[in-house]
Structures are given as structure tokens and as C-alpha cells.
């Protein structure tokens, strides 16, 4: 099954995204007889094949479980090792929307990189569209090409091992949208027009991490008659919802009252002891009843509204809880600058 098939039930040979942790996904190809071994237990493929996608699968003889998910370009992106150059979903989704990529669109991508954005492009153009993708790093090109074919994009995505800056974008033609993720996009921009759709609007996005690259790119886009040039950054924050115990001023005051009571009880006892000692000194025989005991401190129950000293599970209903949301601790603050531009079609003869 390819990414584009929207399958309902897991079959032999399917690529399944196994969800191991919060955002930990492992791509696994189903082969009956095989077993997936993880830190969270072992899972025979036979326990997954035939189940609907989305099923929770219990570990073999263990308490753990995983979910078996259908692959999407977004899950695939999450499963990639982080060190690879990746166009993440917030950027990728914005670029597709802004470049107006649709079913049937013809798109150029250079370089292919990890191929993660290529998946998203292929999903959107569908079987009636084309994505020509170019990569100058041979190992990376090979890896992405193989994956894209395995994932069912064979007829949609056309992969080339090529330096587009020197060698152009053949055999792309009739292209609506161009995405350039290159160290020097300005070297590739001048050759573009011959590959674009005749008499149509073409859109471009150049993906560059540094300001200096952006400035050079904008200069070249202007020289090559691209208009509506705009550079933007996309940022995306995740918000984490959590419970916090409510601690009120009233409780503070009651607690401090109880500290005070305890202190005054201790002082009273101390005074009593001192008095008794004094009497002891004065007249040994006058002691009536039993002498005060060291452990005889009048017990004052400290007001403990927040369970200090106890182990408390969040949400424990002996306490009040507030719901807070906080931004994730480490924010992907900057991925790249996205420089967009539009090339107008050639003007027709004017009627006057």
C-alpha cells in the first residue's frame, strides 16, 4: 500500500508507522513471522496484520502497547532522524498552500534532501500531477528515490541526481510551482523560465537559513522579473496542558495560624517547665501529681492544605487543580527564511 491509498486495514507488505512514544514513530514493513522489538516490549507482525489502522496493539506477554498507524507525509517527517535537513510540517504546509499547489500541479523541487517535503508535494499533486525533484548529493538522492518509490510515488515523483545550478531542470515542463532549498538559489533562478507553464502564473519559494542568502536571492529574483517578492518566517509552537495545585492565600493564613499555635503551645509548656523547675528548687516536697514529661508537648495539628510531605498524583481530588498551558520548553525558533515570488505570464497583445 502506498501513502496515497488511504488503506483501512493492515496488510502483509504494508509500511506501518508504529507509535512508540509521544512523538516517536517507527516505520515498519509488515512481514508475517517477523517481530518488532522495542524498549516497550515485543510485537509480532502477525498481531498487527489484519487489524484496522489506528489499533492499539498490546505487547507480547507484557504491559506495554503501541499504536499502528497509516503512514502520512507528516508522520514520515517525524520518524526521520533529526540531524537530516528536513522541511518540517509548519513550513511545508504553508509553502504548499501559498504556492497554490493542487491536484494536477506540476512542481519542481531542488534539492530533494531527506525527501520529506517531496512526500507532501506528491500527496497534494496526486496521480494527475508531477513533481520533478533534483539532488546533488548522490547518497541522499539514491536513498530518497528508493523511499519515494516504495511509498507509492513512482508515477508522480521523478527523481534526478543533478546539480541544477549548472545543469538545469530538464525534463520538467509546464511547471506551476518551484521550491528551491539550495545553498545558492540565485545560481538556479535564471534558467527557470523555460520550464514554466506558458501563459500561466508561476510561483516560487526559496528556502534559506541565513539573511545573506535571502538578500542575494531577492536581488536575483528582481533581475529575473519575478514580482510580489516577500520573505517570511514560519514559526510553530506546541502548547503543553498541565494541572497545577491551587494554593490560596486563605490556606497560607490558616497554615501560618497553626504555626503560631504550635509555637505558643511550645512556649507555654516551656514556661510551665521553668515554673516547675523553680518550684523544684524552692521546695522539693511540694510537687503534686506526676512531673511533666518531655514527650508531653501538647500536640498541635499543623494545617497542611497542600499535602506537604505526601506523594500526590496530579489531579488527586482531595485538592483543587488549575489547568495551565505552557509553551514547550525548546522551541524550533528558526528553520529558514522563505522567500516567495510570482512570475506573471507574458502579456498578450492588447485590444484597443
Amino acid at each position: 500500500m502506498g501513502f496515497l491509498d488511504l488503506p483501512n486495514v493492515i496488510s502483509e507488505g504494508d509500511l506501518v508507522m508504529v507509535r512508540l512514544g509521544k512523538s516517536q514513530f517507527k516505520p515498519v514493513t509488515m512481514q508475517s513471522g517477523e517481530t518488532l522489538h522495542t524498549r516497550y516490549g515485543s510485537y509480532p507482525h502477525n498481531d498487527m496484520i489484519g487489524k484496522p489502522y489506528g489499533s492499539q496493539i498490546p505487547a507480547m506477554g507484557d504491559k506495554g502497547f503501541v499504536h499502528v498507524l497509516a503512514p502520512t507525509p507528516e508522520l514520515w517527517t517525524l520518524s526521520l532522524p533529526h540531524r537530516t535537513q528536513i522541511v518540517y510540517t509548519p513550513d511545508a504546509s504553508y509553502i504548499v498552500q501559498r504556492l497554490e499547489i493542487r491536484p494536477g500541479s506540476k512542481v519542481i523541487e531542488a534539492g530533494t534532501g531527506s525527501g520529506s517535503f517531496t512526500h507532501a508535494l506528491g500527496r497534494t499533486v496526486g496521480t494527475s500531477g508531477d513533481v520533478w525533484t533534483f539532488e546533488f548529493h548522490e547518497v541522499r538522492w539514491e536513498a530518497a528515490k528508493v523511499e519515494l518509490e516504495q511509498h507509492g510515488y513512482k508515477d508522480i515523483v521523478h527523481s534526478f541526481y543533478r546539480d541544477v545550478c549548472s545543469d538545469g531542470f530538464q525534463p520538467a515542463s509546464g511547471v506551476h510551482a518551484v521550491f528551491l532549498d539550495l545553498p545558492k538559489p540565485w545560481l538556479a533562478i535564471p534558467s527557470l523560465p523555460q520550464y514554466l507553464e506558458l501563459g500561466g502564473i508561476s510561483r516560487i519559494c526559496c528556502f534559506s537559513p541565513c539573511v545573506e542568502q535571502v538578500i542575494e536571492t531577492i536581488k536575483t529574483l528582481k533581475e529575473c522579473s519575478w514580482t510580489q517578492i516577500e520573505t517570511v518566517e514560519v514559526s510553530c509552537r506546541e502548547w503543553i496542558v498541565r494541572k497545577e495545585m491551587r494554593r490560596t492565600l486563605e490556606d497560607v493564613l490558616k497554615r501560618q495560624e497553626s504555626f503560631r499555635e504550635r509555637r505558643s503551645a511550645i512556649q507555654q509548656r516551656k514556661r510551665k517547665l521553668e515554673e516547675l523547675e523553680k518550684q523544684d528548687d524552692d521546695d522539693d516536697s511540694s510537687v503534686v501529681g506526676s512531673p511533666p514529661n518531655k514527650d508531653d508537648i501538647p500536640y498541635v495539628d499543623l494545617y497542611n492544605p497542600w499535602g506537604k510531605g505526601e506523594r500526590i498524583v496530579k489531579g488527586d481530588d482531595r485538592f483543587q487543580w488549575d489547568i495551565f498551558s505552557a509553551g514547550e520548553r525548546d522551541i524550533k525558533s528558526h528553520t529558514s527564511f522563505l522567500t516567495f515570488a510570482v512570475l506573471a505570464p507574458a502579456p498578450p497583445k492588447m485590444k484597443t
Partner: protein
Amino acid sequence: MGAIIKPDAHLILYLPSGNHKIVKVSPGRKVPLGKFGSFDADQILGHPFGLTYEIDNQGCLTVVDSLDSVVDEATWTDSEDNRMLVDDPDSQKMTMDEIETLKKDKQLTGQEIVAKVIESHSAFNKKTAFSQEKYIQRKAQKFLKRFRTQSIGSNELMEYYNAKDPARIMDLRMETLGLMLSLANVQPGGTYLIVDGVSSLVVCAVLERLGPEGQLVLLHENEMVNLEPLQLMGIDLVSDPRVKPVSFLKFLHPEEFRAELEFATAPPPQEQLDQLKTSQRNRTLRRYRKAVQYKNIVDLRNSHSFDALLIATTLQVSGLVQALIPFVHGSRSIVVYHPCKEPLVDLEENITRPDNRLIATQILESAVRPYQSVPGRFHPHMSLERGGGYILHCLRAYPTAVQAQGRR
């Protein structure tokens, strides 16, 4: 060849001021442009979209390169800094009346007027190159009679509502709409369940990605669905066979509409139709077609296999999501948009996290920051409209019968 402007098409025209206008271009008709006058629609019919035109005083169009560039290179001297510049409203020597005369009597073009206005600014060479450029741009936006044509899709619709009344699209912006579509894995041929309280913007955007085979069920909260407003912009949702509107009541409680569903099982017998008056027969046939469409929706519903649920509404989202979980297929996405974080925090805390039919919940806030890209003056725009709101995303799961305990 790219798409061309066909007779009676709806267009959006972008103006140098940054404003835009939606118009219909019909053969032989004039297209009004407010204070810029008007032009004959015939002049642009058959042209590709995306061209920029200048209107002369006779209403004739010429294709130009850009909406707001004036002269190739400024020939004025500038100042290193503005230490010599004293704020003085009188430094512009030309009055509005004089400018009107230039326009009306001398028949100058917008470009020529801008040049005159700059010439007559007494302190222009005391401004820095930066201030000069800003001044020219402001005047260009005011006097250039230009426009750019564009067909109307979800991005243009969003821009239109954002300028007119952002509340009608709940402040939804391009980065967030794009993210919704990606997270929902919208693709050609899919089947989607949608709650759209944003003037059908989500419906439009999904349709753009759907191809001819896809379909969407649109849940609405009123007596009748309201798809007409977009007709005025040339977007026909009413007769698009991929759009299947249904009320919440009829979607959630088909058991209350058994009669209608039974009615749909077979066409009304011909002999029965023959007995009816024409008007009654038409009414019966219409009722039958509607019932079939409804049955079709209920069948989709009962298959519990929508490829995603997309929600953008001012209704309380927690109850909504809870009611709609069963209809989404396993491993498919639920994506909820809201301009404020609070309803989504409530949704996560009370519905998606406690319910083991939903996994991988995350609340995301995406925002775009545009830069000014004038050469030598690259910096983020000084002011910015507020960000694109929040998305809650989670995936539908099928829990095992015996609930596995432990992690997560």
C-alpha cells in the same frame, strides 16, 4: 497554457494601495474601480490571470511590470541622515487642487503625477534615501491607477474576509489553514467530515485539494445550509456534487428520520407518479432525490471511516468532538481550529486526553512573520496583524478491549 479570463468570470483585483476588489467581468460591460474610474471588461477577457495593468485617462489599459514601482532609479540626491529635516507640513508646495488639475486638465498619468509631486517637495533632498522611498511609495499608492488580476481561491477568499471582517473567518490565516489541511492529510480522493463556521473557507480549501473523486460531508447548525454567499465570488458550492451538507440533527440522529431513509430505498413507483399532478410529481421526485442524498450521507456516516474531521467553529468544541469521534476511521486525524487557546485546552484536558479513542493530542500555534525586503534595509515588518490562532490535532485510535495500563 495557463487559465484565461472567461466571460462572466469573477476576479479579484489588487490595487496599489494594498486593497482589493472582487468584480465580475462580462462582455461589453464596464468594470467600475471607484475613484480610479472604470474600464471595459473586453480589454482583459481572454487574457491570462496575473497581469498588472495601468488605466489611462481614457480608460485604456496597458500591461505594466508592477503595481507600485514608479521610476527605475531615484535620481534625487539624498541625505546621510535626517538631521537637517525639520517637521514642516508646508514642505509639500503643491495643493490637492493643483494635483486635481494635473489629473483632470493636463491628463497626466499616475506616474507623471507622482514625479510632479516629488519635484514640488521643498525638503525632499534633505530626507534620507529611506524616507524618500517611503514617501514615493505612499504617493504611488495614492496616484497610480493600476490593478492586478487574480482568480479567486481559498487564499484570495481569506484575504478578502481578512480585510472586510476577519470575525467571519474567525481570524483564520494562511499558515494555519495550510497546517490544518496537511495535518488532516487532505488529498485527492479522500472523504472528509467538516464543521465550517468560517464562511465556507475550510470547505473551499479542502475542495481545492480533493480532485474529482473526493467528497466532504458538511455539518451545519442552522435550519438550512448557507452556501450562497460564495456564489457572488464565482465559487459554486451549491451544485458541486462533492459537497454534501447535512444538519447536525440529521447526521447524529438518523433514527429520527426513518421515514425519509425508507423513502430513499427505491424510486417512487411510476404508476404512483403517473397519478399525480405535474407540480406534485416534481415535488415528489425532488423529495426523493433529497432523500437519496441524505441516505448516501447516512451510509458514509455508518461506515465510520471518514479520512479526517476538520472543525472551525464558534460552537463549544469539546462536545462537538466527543459526538463525532466514532465516525472517524482509525489512524485518521481530528483537526480543530480556534483563534483562542482556551477552548482547545479545555478540549485536550476534558475530551481528547482522557478518551483512549484519541491519541497523540497536540496544540499548535503557527505564525508567519513577513520581512521588508527593500535592498539594504532588510528587517521584519515593523507592525503585524496578530497571529493565526491555534490548532488541536489528534489521531483516532481503536483501544484494545482489555485496556492496557501504564505509560502515557
